[in-house]
């Protein structure tokens, strides 16, 4: 019985901390930008599913309705934030494009914030064969 408890505890210790830390950091970063936890929703994330070079990956985020801001987050880069964009009245379409770094294969998360306070998020899996030079 004791041995079993030890094995379970050791497995939990070995498996949990890293995954939880990145998830927590990701959630904290999203909450810091959006003000609260977004619900799941529709957002278009255009990015290559299979990326050969993680140093400059073109990505486009588009919402289907007017938004006041769009942001992009990654769970497995050294930092969760990628870009926070905010839109003024003269913006014609709720979308923007940029080029990002990807340290490894992961599920990137886009978050939208509407002027009335609603926010929602969507994710997209990306496979990276050559990672960006962000490892220490």
């Amino acid at each position, binding site marked *: 019985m004791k041995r079993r408890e030890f094995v379970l505890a050791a497995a939990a210790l070995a498996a949990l901390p890293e995954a939880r830390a990145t998830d927590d950091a990701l959630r904290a970063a999203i909450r810091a930008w959006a003000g609260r936890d977004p619900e799941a929703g529709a957002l278009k994330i255009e990015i290559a599913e299979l990326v050969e070079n993680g140093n400059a990956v073109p990505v486009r985020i588009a919402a289907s309705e007017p938004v006041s801001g769009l942001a992009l987050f990654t769970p497995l*880069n050294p930092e969760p934030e990628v870009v926070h964009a905010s839109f003024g009245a003269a913006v014609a379409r709720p979308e923007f494009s940029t080029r990002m770094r990807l340290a490894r294969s992961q599920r990137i998360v886009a978050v939208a914030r509407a002027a009335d306070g609603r926010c929602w998020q969507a994710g997209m899996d990306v496979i990276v064969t050559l990672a960006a030079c962000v490892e220490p």
Partner: protein
Amino acid sequence: MATRAVITLPVAIKAGEPFEVRATVAHAMETGYRSGDDGARLARDLVRRFECRLDGELVFAADLFAAISANPYLSFWLRANKPAELSFSWRGDNGFSHDETRRLNVA
């Protein structure tokens, strides 16, 4: 060293019609996670903020982080009803600062 920026705008813009703005500035976006040839860590040096103003009114802004590629590129869609001035500004670490303005030919 003079900073170079490339801004792409349509030659002719119709009043009220959406047009795409693309802006890139030359910058290494050093993450602070890389080591140089001598093994020493390269200090973080990022462009932190991009702003685009239409006749002085803020229309698009972006906070950039280490996960944005070198020579940060942003594209977005605007709408203008009359000829206007579009100004761009980039601000970053170590006092990095670059500004550009473009005249919009709205017909």
